[in-house]
């Protein structure tokens, strides 16, 4: 039977959800790395650590490979999700006149499509602001001067809009000082989050992340058949505390931090 071959799995109602689960959980793992790395934005070093981290993330071949896998994963998750949403609508051509969904299920679980769409818009805006501009836009360079003996940064100098360099970062030692010239993504972040509307947009979208993952993280395990009374509470707790509360709240704190520390 042709429908028995392995690839047909992904066209079945169960296979579709396996794709959503695997891609979704991979994105969850990425979020942990992303939020951990971005905590360097809070470091009071005029952005040196964050800028170095940005260089590492965009030049290391292994990380670059993983990030392209991630972009593909997000695209698959989004496209498959939108398709599933429309396929599922076809399964109920006549809607109920009176529907009491709250009596039997959580709001987030019934609105993954809407939440996901908000997140897709967010990802496009976010990628444009920080990924596209970093790669193709005009990000100025900053020169950081650090005293070698004390490790104290003594100067962070803007190289101006006309300064150009072949690489994203150069480090050199001269006398008692270490000099680092690096593309200043930190400054870009700072500038962007002076705009109130963008800050509000980010905060609202992190709310969507929270609801999406409140359902999505736990649901991903269920779709893969991983439902075991022994571990369910652990999955649920991780999904709620880490993915629906700590991670979105941490991300939301970043634009708010820059807006209120102008």
């Amino acid at each position, binding site marked *: 039977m042709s429908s028995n071959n392995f690839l047909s799995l992904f066209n*079945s109602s169960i296979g579709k959800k396996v794709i959503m689960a695997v891609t979704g959980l991979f994105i969850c793992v990425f979020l942990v790395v992303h939020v951990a790395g971005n905590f360097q934005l809070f470091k009071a070093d005029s952005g040196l650590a964050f800028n170095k981290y940005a260089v590492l993330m965009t030049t290391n071949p292994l990380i670059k490979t993983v990030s392209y896998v991630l972009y593909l994963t997000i695209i698959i998750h989004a496209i498959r999700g939108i398709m599933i949403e429309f396929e599922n609508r076809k*399964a109920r051509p006549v809607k109920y006149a009176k529907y009491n969904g709250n*009596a*039997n299920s959580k709001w987030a*679980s019934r609105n993954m499509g809407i939440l996901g769409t908000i997140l897709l818009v967010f990802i496009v805006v976010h990628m444009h602001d920080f990924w596209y501009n970093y790669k193709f836009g005009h990000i100025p360079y900053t020169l950081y001067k650090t005293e070698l003996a004390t490790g104290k940064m003594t100067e962070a100098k803007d190289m101006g809009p006309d300064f150009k360099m072949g690489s994203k970062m150069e480090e050199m030692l001269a006398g008692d000082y270490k000099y680092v010239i690096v593309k200043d993504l930190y400054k870009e972040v700072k500038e962007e989050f002076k705009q109130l509307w963008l800050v509000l947009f980010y905060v609202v979208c992190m709310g969507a992340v929270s609801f999406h993952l409140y359902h999505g993280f736990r649901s991903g395990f*269920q*779709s893969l*058949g991983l439902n075991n009374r022994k571990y369910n509470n652990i999955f649920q707790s991780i999904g709620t505390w880490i993915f629906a509360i700590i991670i979105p709240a941490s991300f939301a704190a970043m634009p708010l931090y820059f807006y209120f520390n102008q």
Partner: protein
Amino acid sequence: MNITLKVWRQKNNNERGRFETYQVKDVSPDMSFLEMFDVLNEDLITEGKEPIAFDHDCREGICGMCSMYINGRPHGPLQGVTTCQLHMRSFKDGDTIVVEPWRAAAFPVIKDLAVDRTSFDRIMAAGGFVSVNTGNAQDANSILIPKTDADLAFEAAACIGCGACVAACKNSSAMLFVSAKVSQLALLPQGQVERHERVIKMVNQMDEEGFGSCTNTGACEAECPKNISVENIARLNREYLSAKIAK
């Protein structure tokens, strides 16, 4: 009790349906929901009107025939009961109750509140059985089954195939039904021979019938009159994945 009913009336699957409003007077709180419909139908017949078509059979919660979507919930406001076991004491005097048929592409309306659930039968016919070709039944004690497995299989086998899971699901997914039917056999030694083939065939049939996919909202479990757990859906996913990888 006096009740206002808004009931979906639809002549057949080809014609458009609409809501009709009926006043039902002097309803006893001890009447079942279906008995209230019986009384209303008697009145309609006396008035020379077409009675409301609705499915029912055993009226003791085990046959799986009754199927009304009451005030936004399959089988009404109570948990773990079918419509026939719902009594009017669950409502208040003067209430307006909206009654609709199960809504799903795979459950076309036959008439009024009665829907065609033969899509479930076709899923069962695709593999929801154990082929035993010959001989007498063996002595039960010759096949050892761990008590925990027997209990899980029994809980899954409690599914009466009423379709409330489909009705409750925002995607009209039949995953809870199919998972219960796959689980009850996958958990027992008798079901092992056709284990892989069964799950693939039943899921294929489920998809062909036009049911949606599972979003894990848990609405099915919450509305199931037999309290079938979504743990069965996870088992179905495991069974299907391993069958697809093995076959």
